[in-house]
């Protein structure tokens, strides 16, 4: 599919492509009928509330195995390094184990608890009481306090929302408390708080993890998405929401996140109109009321009596000529004001130009989405007809291509607005260079536009009422146009990545890569439900706990699409809740706690 038509520039010319439709190798090429099944083994994963624990265990297990650590130490290290195993290992290589541990507050102590048995009484420095040794607990760092005091400390910290890093009570001791001890002591007095503590630890995998983010759907679907290598990508959650993983707003490539943020804001507050006003009025330096300038020279006066220089806004005297104000020397007074108004006007028209096109394609996209139903209806009618044509997958494939290209097209306008405007890259290119690049880009944009419209027209044809040969003709058109638009989109992304954004010196703009098959639907993380997670430091059974084994589980098996594998994992016996706790993972922890 990728090679198809490559190297043959003629196909991008729509006139030629029509004449080439008869070519049998295009029609017969099954590769052209793109398979719209979700890609196999997608690199993004949906983490549901059921699979969150397993996802976390997978990383914990890796670190535990590599460093022969107990679970809570591995977790402390991972939380410290934001669940980035690779970075953790890099620090290990670079700084050594001792530094890795002490920075994160991990103290590995071999003889935990043994020294307590020597005396039956210990002095607790917190409550300042002598307590019997069996009601005191010694943490890994060696500090020992009574259980009452530890519990009080834990409760305060959990309520403060600091579950992930509860430090030892001793002054200046950086050690992180053993989560098993926390859980054990707290649950005796406040079982609900122990649950909250567990949930915080669990959700740390999402909250503190650069590669995992909550799906931004509202109301929240309860899922999180994990990406593999590149955080600049677009994903589709199991709930159906497509979004930019990097900024969590709608999928907006080929716009960069920064451009999109600016654009969305611009559209929201119609800042151009605001600009229009600010060009025509200025606040008086004395009373701060907006003063309008109506022609004349650049000395304006407010109704309060204050005169000021229109160009710098500074208060002045009244004695002036066309070119200077007595005693005032801001150096801008002579600047041609007409230019400024002209520019504001030009900026507004420019914005309107891009916005109109952006909106036109967005609207078409919405209309076509509605058309989908009718078109699919035509397919089912056609399928029931007495005909030698049986396969109508080209319609659905064509539709998907249309939607995909429409989106690219519509977001290419805000991209162009910023790429070739003054706001972001004024100093990056000289005018001539900018003009050349803009023409290059607009050429591509127009070609894409023309082919997208053609594709749209063809799909709207009442092919269910056409004779076979005419249907064949439309089929050829749709297949061919699909390939063309796909290639044009690909080229546009390449041009943006290499020739436009790739050349920038200042700042980095990243865009999600173009995916022929559309935004990748995150596949469900397969999980193993034989673990007993509530027991701290509990080992996973070997068959699914090792990193090798679990990564195998991640990949949808064999021929099934990821949907199938999702069903597969759903069929597995599942333990409700985590070790008896019932977490409402439909909301991030802080939302729940706020209530």
């Amino acid at each position: 599919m990728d090679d198809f038509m490559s190297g043959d520039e003629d196909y991008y010319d729509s006139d030629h492509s029509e004449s080439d439709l008869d070519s049998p190798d295009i029609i017969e090429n099954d590769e052209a009928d793109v398979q719209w099944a979700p890609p196999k083994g997608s690199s993004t994963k949906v983490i549901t509330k059921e699979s969150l624990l397993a996802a976390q265990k997978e990383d914990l297990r890796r670190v535990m195995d590599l460093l022969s650590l107990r679970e809570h130490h591995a977790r402390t290290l991972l939380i410290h390094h934001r669940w980035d195993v690779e970075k953790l290992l890099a620090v290990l290589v670079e700084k050594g184990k001792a530094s890795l541990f002490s920075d994160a507050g991990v103290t590995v102590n071999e003889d935990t608890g043994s020294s307590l048995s020597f005396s039956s009484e210990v002095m607790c420095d917190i409550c300042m009481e002598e307590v019997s040794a069996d009601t005191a607990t010694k943490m890994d760092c060696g500090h020992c306090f009574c259980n009452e005091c530890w519990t009080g400390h834990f409760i305060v910290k959990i309520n403060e929302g600091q579950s992930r890093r509860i430090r030892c009570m001793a002054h200046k001791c950086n050690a992180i408390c053993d989560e098993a001890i926390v859980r054990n002591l707290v649950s005796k007095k406040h079982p609900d708080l122990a649950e909250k503590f567990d949930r915080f630890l669990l959700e740390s995998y999402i909250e503190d993890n650069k590669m995992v983010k909550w799906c931004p759907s509202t109301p929240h679907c309860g899922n999180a998405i994990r990406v593999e290598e590149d955080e600049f990508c677009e994903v589709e959650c199991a709930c159906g929401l497509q979004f930019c993983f990097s900024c969590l707003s709608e999928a907006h490539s080929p716009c960069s996140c920064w451009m999109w943020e600016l654009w969305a804001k611009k559209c929201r507050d119609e800042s151009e109109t605001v600009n229009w006003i600010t060009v025509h009025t200025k606040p008086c330096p004395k009373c701060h009321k907006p003063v309008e300038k109506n022609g004349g020279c650049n000395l304006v006066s407010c109704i309060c009596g204050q005169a000021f220089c229109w160009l710098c806004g500074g208060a002045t005297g009244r004695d002036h000529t066309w070119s200077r104000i007595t005693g005032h020397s801001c150096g801008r007074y002579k600047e041609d004001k007409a230019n400024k108004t002209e520019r504001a006007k030009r900026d507004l028209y420019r914005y309107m130009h891009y916005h109109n096109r952006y909106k036109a394609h967005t609207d078409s996209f919405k209309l076509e989405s509605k058309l989908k139903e009718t078109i699919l209806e035509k397919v089912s009618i056609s399928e029931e007809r007495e005909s030698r044509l049986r396969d109508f997958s080209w319609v659905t494939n064509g539709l998907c291509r249309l939607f995909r290209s429409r989106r690219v097209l519509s977001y290419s306008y805000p991209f162009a607005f910023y790429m070739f405007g003054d706001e972001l890259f004024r100093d990056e290119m000289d005018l001539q260079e900018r003009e050349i690049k803009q023409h290059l880009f607009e050429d591509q944009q127009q070609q894409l536009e023309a082919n997208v419209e053609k594709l749209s027209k063809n799909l709207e044809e009442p092919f269910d009422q056409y004779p076979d040969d005419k249907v064949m003709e439309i089929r050829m058109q749709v297949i061919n146009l699909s390939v063309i638009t796909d290639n044009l989109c690909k080229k546009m992304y390449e041009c943006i990545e290499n020739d436009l954004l790739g050349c920038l010196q200042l700042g980095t703009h990243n865009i999600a890569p173009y995916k022929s098959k559309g935004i990748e639907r995150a596949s469900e993380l397969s999980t193993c439900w034989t673990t007993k997670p509530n027991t701290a430091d509990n080992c996973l059974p070997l068959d699914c706990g090792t990193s090798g084994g679990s990564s195998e589980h991640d990949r949808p098996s064999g021929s099934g699409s990821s949907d199938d594998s999702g069903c597969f994992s759903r069929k597995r016996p599942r333990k409700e809740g985590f070790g008896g706790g019932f977490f409402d993972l439909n909301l991030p922890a802080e939302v729940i706690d706020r209530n």
Partner: protein
Amino acid sequence: MVDFGRVQKELQECSRDMEASGIKIAPVSDNLVHLSGTIPGPIGTPYEGGTFHLDIKLPDGYPFEPPKMHFVTKVWHPNISSQSGAICLDILKDQWSPALTLKTALLSVQALLSAPEPDDPQDAVVAQQYLRDYQTFQGTARYWTESFAKTSSLGVEEKVQKLMEMGFPESLVRSALEAVGGDENMALEKLCSS
């Protein structure tokens, strides 16, 4: 719930070595959640010779949560608000440890008087002066010590006693004294005007 057993022990421990440390802690209310602390100005600083009073309130979670302290005596110091007496000190915030005590906290406050940290100021005006014009800073700090930390040889309790004898209720007397930084005459003025 405040651990009163511990607070009692802290008070005993503190009064035992009051001679050596110069730090005093006394209860203001009967229930031990409201206390007052006294620290002598460190020798060799503009605060030398002054006696500084602090208001201490214990939160429910004490000692697992830090005590809330502020200066009642007016102080000119980059990390102490010249207006409210609020103190900017890490151990009174996120670096608090339950192993610290009221006495160690007051000792830290005293150490702060000796070693200001103008880069992390509570009072921007004072901090600016400290950095730009150290001489003037010292002069002002010394003047404030003279006028507010030495106003009278009387202790707070004696002032309270004196004002109560004039017929004002104790609670009013205490809040008035607190509001004016312990100045007896200003407190009297405030009591008469209210």
